[in-house]
């Protein structure tokens, strides 16, 4: 259709406009509005209801522990993941198999079981081996060790995929100029791999933030454990778990919007 709408325009032009509107609605991020509405409702409840506000005040201090666990574990697991991921694509079959064993072991056991196993079996064995008293190691540290080891394996797979996404010709071009394998990896392959890997790393950061709630298994006072302690004292399950859900959801929403933004920017660039 050309030009502005003719007065008393025929049915087809009306139909066209209708179709436009419907498509607009279909492409709008309705899910985002829904989540925001849910969050707003929750926030309103906390702001207007005293017992919810009280639960919020008691639970919120746990956020520092949640964030500390998340950030520290993420840094360690990216480091571990990079090493294991490079091992995974190494030409050295010993390194490669060590890395694969690590990754497949972690992927084959439930996270909850791994956390219990690492915190109560592996860490005591390791601490005894280096001459530490078993109970000298705080539960939070054990949990960070466990989460880092678990996510290190997940992130290794991300790095492997990233390195494998770089065309083979890049390594050949580097090598043909006389660069060593390691030099080519560092200056040519990894910088390109990191770019493709960033959104996936962001998603794993979000997943790690959520899994940090498993700290409650070891009695570490993060958000989740604070909420559970609160219910244990007050039996106010509605308040505690609504507040808890609200806190995690608002954090992950912000993070996932950030990851999407990053993805769009990288996709364009």
């Amino acid at each position, binding site marked *: 259709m050309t030009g502005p709408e003719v007065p008393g325009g025929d049915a087809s032009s009306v139909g066209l406009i209708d179709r436009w509107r419907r498509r607009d609605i279909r492409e709008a991020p309705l899910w985002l509005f829904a989540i925001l509405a849910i969050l707003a409702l929750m926030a309103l409840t906390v702001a207007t209801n005293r017992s919810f506000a009280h639960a919020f005040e008691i639970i919120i201090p746990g956020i520092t522990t949640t964030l500390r666990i998340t950030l520290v574990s993420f840094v360690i697991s990216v480091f571990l993941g990079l090493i294991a991921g490079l091992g995974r694509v190494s030409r050295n079959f010993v390194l490669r198999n060590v890395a694969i064993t690590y990754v497949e072991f972690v992927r084959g056991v439930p996270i909850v079981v791994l956390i219990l196993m690492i915190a109560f079996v592996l860490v005591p064995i390791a601490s005894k081996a280096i001459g530490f008293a078993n109970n000298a190691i705080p539960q939070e540290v054990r949990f960070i060790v466990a989460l880092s080891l678990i996510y290190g394996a997940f992130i290794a797979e991300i790095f492997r995929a990233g390195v494998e996404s770089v*065309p083979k*010709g*890049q390594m*050949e*071009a*580097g*090598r*043909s*100029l*006389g*660069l*060593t394998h390691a*030099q080519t990896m560092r*200056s*040519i392959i990894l*910088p*390109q791999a990191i*770019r493709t890997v960033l959104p996936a790393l962001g998603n794993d950061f979000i997943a790690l933030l959520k899994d940090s709630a498993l700290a409650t298994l070891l009695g570490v006072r993060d958000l989740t454990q604070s909420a559970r302690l609160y219910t244990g004292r007050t039996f106010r399950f509605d308040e505690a778990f609504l507040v808890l859900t609200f806190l995690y959801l608002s954090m992950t929403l912000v993070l996932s919007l950030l990851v999407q933004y990053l993805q769009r920017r990288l996709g364009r660039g």
Partner: protein
Amino acid sequence: MADRPAIRPDIRPDIGPDDRIVVDHLSKSFGSIRAVRDASLRIKTGTVTIIIGPSGSGKSTVLRCMNHLEVPTSGAVYIDGVHLEAKDTDINTVRREIGMVFQQFNLFPHMSVLDNITLAQRMVRGRSKQEAVDVAMAQLERVGIPEQAHKRPGALSGGQQQRVAIARSLAMNPKAMLFDEPTSALDPEMIKEVLDVMLELAASGMTMVVVSHEMGFAREVGSHMVMMDFGEIVEEGRADEVFSNPRHPRTQEFFSKIL
């Protein structure tokens, strides 16, 4: 015919002082596919050798073995008398003397044209930043695109990218240059600008081995010609002789198809 083992220093061929690249009874298999069978070649300093043949005939594989990008299943490659497959050979020191230009350019997309050309100079040749930039700019002048120095490769046309790739290799001051179908991925109107650069390079006395279907170029600058078919070298000789008087029926047939 029995394959020779990969490393047999005792049967090292005679290598004269002007034998830049010697390919000695080279065979290469990929799984059950025998890509190259018992190929032998001598590339003299200052010559331009054109390798022709239908696709899948093993041309690229022979070329890639000359840079150890493929490891021969048997036989050997010598660069300036250095046995590439020998255990005590540092392949990196050999490779820095041999430039390689790929069909797909293989520029580094995450760095500028200039950085593409300075990277190996600095990391491998140990040149200072200023020195590397000077060499890079001189080579970009030579291939005719100094004004593109600060762009990313992605912003350049295919022909310009391939010229950058040639400049990148030349900046290492190689003793020989290998070209693996350098114009096959280019639009027709860009082929000439790349061939012109290669023409100039040949005229300057560079030792070149070129896998190419560009017969006009081959006729103009080729001093030697190698015809491959089904993994074997079926004919080899001076370019003008092979052109005017191909002896092997497969060469005659090949020429009749593409000329």
